[in-house]
């Protein structure tokens, strides 16, 4: 049970989780473990960036107690944060490390919510950044098709899949989008349906056919769409606030 983060290499999963624990929070607060502890675990002070998740530890299993402020008050999500190394999605890694792969599949099948962190694609990124560092839209769509196949065949019982198009600072005006999408209990500009439609139409159009395929093939699955960035707290918190409505006990 719990929430799992997955995504490709360098999609920004670790940094996203680390920032979530940052005490400068709005409506989502990581109560345990402590930010400094998580930082010491994941952040390389010398390099000024997160450490790459090591492949031999296919899954970091870390208890994470998150408190979210919902319209009816505070709720806690007692969950296990599972961070995965990008390598485990490679076929040869899965064959060579079959028992670890099976262990991971068990965990993902038991999880209540999955946050799939996606990097932006080349055509989306603003031209002041080095676009060559990003995969093309076609590659991005092909990669997403592999995710669709993974969910369809390896975890056909998932209920909540949250697609987080990360590094939003590279492709949109963060503050402007946060003003529209941001969550303020009982006073939000948008509700979940409007947020979802807005992000889906604006940022996920290249994979609309795959989303339709996913919805058609997994009964009871709810796919929701988010843009996230470590530089904007409102956007960063949204997936957790959404999950909090469903998962918190």
């Amino acid at each position: 049970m719990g929430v799992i983060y997955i995504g490709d290499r360098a999609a920004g999963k670790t940094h996203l989780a680390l920032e979530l624990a940052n005490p400068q929070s709005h409506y989502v607060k990581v109560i345990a473990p402590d930010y400094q502890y998580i930082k010491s675990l994941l952040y390389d002070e010398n390099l000024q960036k997160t450490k790459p998740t090591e492949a031999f530890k296919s899954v970091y299993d870390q208890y994470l107690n998150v408190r979210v402020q919902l319209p009816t008050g505070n709720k806690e999500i007692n969950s296990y944060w599972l961070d995965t190394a990008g390598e485990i999605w490679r076929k040869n890694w899965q064959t060579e490390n079959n028992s670890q792969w099976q262990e991971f599949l068990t965990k993902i099948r038991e999880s209540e919510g999955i946050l799939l962190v996606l990097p932006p694609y080349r055509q989306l990124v603003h031209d002041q950044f080095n676009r060559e560092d990003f995969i093309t839209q076609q590659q991005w769509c092909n990669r997403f098709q592999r995710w669709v196949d993974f969910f369809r065949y390896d975890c056909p019982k998932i209920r909540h899949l949250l697609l987080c198009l990360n590094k939003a600072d590279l492709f949109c005006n963060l503050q402007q989008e946060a003003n529209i999408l941001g969550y303020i209990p009982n006073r939000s500009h948008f509700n979940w349906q409007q947020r979802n439609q807005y992000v889906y139409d604006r940022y996920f159009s290249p994979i609309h056919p795959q989303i339709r395929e996913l919805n058609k093939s997994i009964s009871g699955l709810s796919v929701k769409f988010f843009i996230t960035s470590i530089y904007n707290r409102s956007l960063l918190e949204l997936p957790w606030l959404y999950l909090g409505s469903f998962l918190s006990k």
Partner: protein
Amino acid sequence: MGNIVVIGPRLSGKTTYLAALSYLPALRSQKGKDNNFKIQPLNDESRDLAESAENILVEGATFESTKIAEGGVDSLPYYSFQLQVKKGLFKKIENIQLNVRDYPGEVFEKIADRNLSDEIHQEFIDECLMADVRGCLILFTHWEHGTDKFYYKVMSQFIKLMDEKQRTQNLKLAVVMSKCERGELWPGRIDPETDLFGIHLPRTKTILQDSINPKNLRFYALSTFGVLHKNDPRPNRIDQAGSNGSESVLREPNSWQPYNLIEPLYWLSKV
């Protein structure tokens, strides 16, 4: 104390209906309205459901479908309500306690498959038709061409099972068309027996009328989301792409006015 089960196919809106029922006191107090019925959640599960209504429905999201967990039927949510009824100025207030079990739609649909006999399905049938169950609230939602045939199949099998358990004479059935805010159905809500079931689900209606004692059978129309205003009958819902084709969310929470949520339950609970 009345035990009532809420059954119906997948996506017929059972959980959303129960959530709206739990949230009704809050909804009424916001609008400053009062009427003949008052309902209060009594146990933790129904109170949690009222919170979920506020966090999920009012915020423009939808409930996930109810699934059977490992604990079988016993693990399914069991809601308890206190229903207070005052009809007429000088009538005494009636207090009725209702216990309602929410079953996943897939088990209901399996009734049509006569050869199927898995454990959960058997448990479901046993519990639905137990002697202390006063009535069933059966929610139907589709009315399009072809659905009558399927509902007919399910209901004829359900009637057979009632017969096996000697419940044909003493189990009340409130047969409901849910989500009546839909434009095609809304005008039919005044006389649902004729204008909804008679027109869209005639075979289902006939098999029920032929097999169930008329005093134990009634047809209802209900709408959890309702329409925008009494002078603006546009559905208070938005359909969006989602699981199983589409899912509906509440369009304007501030105009939320459910239609006919309590009447069928009240009728079922009456001796």
